C-alpha cells in the first residue's frame, strides 16, 4: 500500500480539509455543479426559444446572438425587423417605439450575463460589465446622461462585438421623462418575472443535479478485483471516498438501489486503507470509533505532526523564566493552554530545542501535551509514595517528582532495560532526587513492593493515538497484537490496583492511561478491572476537557461510571490520542464469594501480619 507516500496527494486536500478552511465545501461543490448546469440549461432553452419563435420575438435574438461566434449580420437582423414584425404580448399596450425600448434592454440584459460567464471571451465580458452599469443609468439617471451613455455603449459594442444591443441603444435615445415611470414599472415587472423563471429553472436543476449525482455507482466486484492488480490514481480514490461519504451521510436519498450500507462501508474501508495506508484490521477498528466524516478527520490529523511541547521543570526554574531564556535564543513559543501551568508549545526554533544549555541544565523536558494528563489526573502530593509502573523515558515520572517537590518517594519501574538509560538520564538531568529506578515486569509488582499512595500505569499499548509520531503502527498491528496487549494491560491494571494502599490518608488512587484510542485497550480494560476488583471505583479525572469514555460500544455494555474516564483525540484536541481513567481504591480487601481475600503486597497485609505477630 503505502499510498500515503505518494507526494501528489499532498496537493489535493480532501473535501473535509477544504471544509475546515472554507466552511461548507460539499455545499460549495454542489453549488458550482448546479451553477454550471443551470447555465447549460439556460443556453439550451434560449437556443430552443430562438428556433421556435424565430424572428417573431425580439427577445430571443440577443440570447441567441450571445455566442461571439455568431456572425454580425445575424445579430443585427432582429434589430432591423423590430419595427416591422412588432410585438405580440405586453408590448401591445404601449405605443410606437416604447415596447421596443422596454423589451430591448430587458430581454438582452438579463440573459446576457448568465451566458457570458462561460461562453464569452474577456473582451466581451468587460463590455458586458459596462452594460450592467449602464442599466442602472437607464433606470435611475437623468436623460441627458443617458444619451451620452448610449453613445459610449455604441463604442463599447463595436469593441466588444456585442452588436445585438444595437437595437436597444438606437431606441434608447427616444426615452422621455413622460414615459420614464412606465418604463421603470415595466422593468420591475420583467425582473420579477425573470426571477420567477430563474427560480423555477433552479429548482428543476436541483432535481436534475441530485438525480444525476445519485448515479454514483459502487465499483463492481470485477472492478474491485482489477483494482487490486492495478491500483487507481490517488485522486480518483480520494474522489470516491468523498462520494461514498456523501452517500453515507444521506443514505436513504442517495443510496444505489441494489447496494446496502455495508457495501458502501466495505468499499470505503478499501479505499481509505489504500489512501491512508492502514491495514484493514486497524481501519475497521478505527472506523468503529467514529462517524465516517470524523474518521476522515482523525486520519488526516494523523498525517500531521503535533506541535512540539515542553514541560517546565519546576524543581529548577519557573515557566516565565524559562520562556524568557528561550525567547532570548530566538525560540517562538506560547503556553500550551489554560489547563496547564508548566507547558509551553514551541512553534519554531533556530536552535535544536533538545540541545540548548537550558535543556542540558534540566530546566525543561520535551514532552507531549497528552502525557501531562495522567500525571495531572494522578495529582501526587508531597511526602507520598508513588509508583510509575512503566516509566521510561521519564516524562511523567519527573513531572510527578516535580509535583511532589522532591519529597516522599517515587518508584520508577520499566520492563525494558535499554529504555531505563534514558529514564535515569532524565531523572538526573532534571534534578530529581527522590526517585529510585528499578527494572521489573510490572506484573510482579505488588510482590516486589506495595502499599503505594498512588500508582500511575501508563500501559504499553498499540499506539493508535500516536500514529502521527510512529506511522508504522498503521500496518504492523494485527489482531494478535491487540489480544496480546489487552491481556497484558489487564494483568498490569490488576497489579497496579493491588499495589495501592487504600488506607492511605492522602491517596489510594490509581491512574490508568494509554496512548491508544481503541476501546479494547481503554474502556474494556477499565471495565475488566472494575469487575475483577470490586474494591475500586472510578472517580473524576479532574481534567476539564476531553470526551467522556464510552459506556457502551457495539453491543458491549460497560459500567456506567466509565463516563468519568476521558478520551483525547488528535483531531479534536490537537494532542496525541489518549485515554485517562482514575480509580479510587476503597478497601484493601476483596470479597470473593463469602471469603475475604487480601491481595499480596498491599499495605493492609503488612499491617495484618504485624498484628498476628
Amino acid at each position, binding site marked *: 500500500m503505502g499510498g500515503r507516500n505518494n507526494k501528489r496527494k499532498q496537493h489535493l486536500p480532501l473535501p473535509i480539509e477544504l471544509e475546515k478552511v472554507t466552511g461548507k465545501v460539499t455545499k460549495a461543490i454542489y453549488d458550482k455543479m448546479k451553477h454550471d448546469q443551470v447555465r447549460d440549461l439556460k443556453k439550451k432553452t434560449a437556443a430552443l426559444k430562438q428556433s421556435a419563435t424565430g424572428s417573431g420575438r425580439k427577445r430571443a435574438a440577443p440570447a441567441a446572438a450571445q455566442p461571439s461566434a455568431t456572425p454580425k449580420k445575424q445579430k443585427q437582423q432582429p434589430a432591423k425587423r423590430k419595427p416591422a414584425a412588432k410585438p405580440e404580448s405586453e408590448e401591445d399596450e404601449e405605443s410606437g417605439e416604447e415596447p421596443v425600448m422596454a423589451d430591448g434592454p430587458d430581454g438582452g440584459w438579463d440573459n446576457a450575463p448568465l451566458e457570458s460567464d462561460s461562453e464569452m471571451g474577456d473582451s466581451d465580458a468587460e463590455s458586458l460589465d459596462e452594460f450592467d452599469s449602464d442599466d442602472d443609468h437607464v433606470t435611475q439617471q437623468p436623460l441627458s446622461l443617458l444619451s451620452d451613455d448610449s453613445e459610449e455603449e455604441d463604442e463599447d459594442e463595436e469593441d466588444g462585438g456585442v452588436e445585438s444591443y444595437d437595437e436597444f441603444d438606437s431606441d434608447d435615445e427616444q426615452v422621455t421623462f413622460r414615459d420614464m415611470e412606465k418604463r421603470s414599472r415595466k422593468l420591475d415587472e420583467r425582473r420579477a418575472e425573470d426571477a420567477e423563471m430563474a427560480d423555477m429553472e433552479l429548482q428543476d436543476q436541483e432535481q436534475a443535479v441530485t438525480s444525476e449525482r445519485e448515479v454514483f455507482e459502487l465499483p463492481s466486484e470485477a472492478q474491485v478485483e482489477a483494482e487490486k492488480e492495478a491500483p487507481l490514481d490517488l485522486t480518483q480514490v480520494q474522489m470516491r471516498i468523498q462520494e461514498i461519504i456523501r452517500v453515507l451521510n444521506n443514505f436513504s436519498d442517495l443510496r444505489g438501489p441494489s447496494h446496502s450500507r455495508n457495501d458502501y462501508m466495505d468499499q470505503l474501508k478499501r479505499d481509505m486503507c489504500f489512501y491512508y495506508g492502514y491495514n484493514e484490521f486497524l481501519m475497521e477498528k478505527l472506523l468503529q470509533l467514529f462517524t465516517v466524516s470524523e474518521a476522515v478527520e482523525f486520519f488526516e490529523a494523523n498525517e500531521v505532526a503535533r506541535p512540539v511541547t515542553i514541560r517546565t521543570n519546576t524543581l529548577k526554574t519557573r515557566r516565565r523564566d524559562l520562556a524568557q531564556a528561550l525567547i532570548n535564543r530566538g525560540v517562538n513559543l506560547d503556553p500550551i493552554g489554560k489547563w496547564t501551568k508548566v507547558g509551553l508549545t514551541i512553534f519554531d526554533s533556530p536552535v535544536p530545542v533538545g540541545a540548548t*544549555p537550558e535543556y542540558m541544565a534540566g530546566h525543561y523536558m520535551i514532552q507531549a501535551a497528552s502525557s501531562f494528563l495522567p500525571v495531572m489526573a494522578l495529582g501526587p502530593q508531597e511526602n507520598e509514595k508513588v509508583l510509575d509502573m512503566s516509566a521510561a523515558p521519564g516524562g511523567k515520572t519527573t513531572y510527578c517528582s516535580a509535583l511532589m517537590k522532591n519529597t516522599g518517594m517515587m518508584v520508577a519501574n520499566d520492563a525494558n532495560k535499554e529504555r531505563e*538509560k534514558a529514564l535515569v*538520564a532524565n531523572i538526573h538531568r532534571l534534578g530529581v*532526587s527522590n526517585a529510585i529506578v*528499578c527494572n521489573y515486569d510490572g506484573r510482579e509488582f505488588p510482590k516486589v513492593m506495595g502499599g503505594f499512595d498512588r500508582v500511575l500505569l501508563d500501559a504499553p499499548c498499540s499506539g493508535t493515538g500516536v500514529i502521527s509520531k510512529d506511522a508504522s503502527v498503521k500496518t504492523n498491528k494485527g489482531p494478535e497484537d491487540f489480544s496480546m496487549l489487552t491481556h497484558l494491560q489487564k494483568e498490569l491494571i490488576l497489579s497496579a490496583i493491588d499495589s495501592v494502599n487504600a488506607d492511605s490518608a492522602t491517596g489510594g488512587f490509581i491512574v490508568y492511561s494509554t496512548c491508544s484510542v481503541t476501546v479494547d485497550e481503554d474502556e474494556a480494560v477499565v471495565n475488566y478491572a472494575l469487575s475483577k476488583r470490586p474494591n475500586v471505583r472510578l472517580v473524576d479525572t479532574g481534567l476539564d476537557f476531553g470526551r467522556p469514555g464510552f459506556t457502551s460500544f457495539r453491543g458491549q455494555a460497560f459500567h456506567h461510571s466509565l463516563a468519568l474516564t476521558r478520551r483525547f483525540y488528535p483531531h479534536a484536541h490537537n494532542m496525541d490520542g489518549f485515554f485517562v481513567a482514575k480509580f479510587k481504591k476503597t478497601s484493601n480487601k476483596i470479597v470473593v464469594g463469602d471469603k475475604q481475600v487480601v491481595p499480596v503486597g498491599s499495605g493492609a497485609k503488612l499491617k495484618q501480619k504485624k498484628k498476628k505477630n
Partner: protein
Amino acid sequence: MRPLTDDETKVFFEKLTKYIGRNIIHLIDRPDEPYCFRLQKDRVYYVSESIMRKTTAIGRQNLISLGVCFGKFTKTGKFRMHITALPSLAQYAKYKVWVKPNGEMPFLYGNHVVKAHIGRVTEDMPEHQGVVIFNMADVPLGFGVSARSTVDMRKVDPTGIAVFHQSDNGEYLREEDALF
C-alpha cells in the same frame, strides 16, 4: 546496594573534598532528613535514608538507580565524579568560575575553559583544585580542575587554559549510554 567500605569512603571523600572541602559534612548532616551514600554496581548514590530503607525491597539485579548518582569507582579503585553530582557540588562548591555567554557553548561541548571566556573567579583559588563552572546567570554548567591559581590567571594570555574540563552538562546528551 551496600554502604561503602572504609577504603572506598576514603577515596571517595578525598575526591569530594577537592570540590566542596569541609562542606561534605553538610551533605550528610542535613536539617531535613539524614542522607547516606550507597554503592550499587560500582556507582555511588546519594540518597535519603528513608528511601534507602524502602529500596532494600528491590533486588540487586533489578535496581538501576536510587537517589542521585555521584560517580563511579573505576576498575583500578579510583573514583570518578559524574556530571549527575553537579547540583550537590554546585551548592557547596568552594571555588567557582563564572564563564561569559560566549564561553558557555564551547565548555558545554567538552572544551577546557580559556581565560578569555572567564567572567568572574573566586578569589584565592589555588592551582589544581576542583572548581564548579557557572554561567553568568548562576546556572551550574559543569566542573573541572583549575589550571592556575587566581593570581597566576591574571598573567596568562587570553587563549591560555584557565580550567581543565572534567565534566559538563552536555554529557547528558553526548554520553547517555556510558554514563548510566
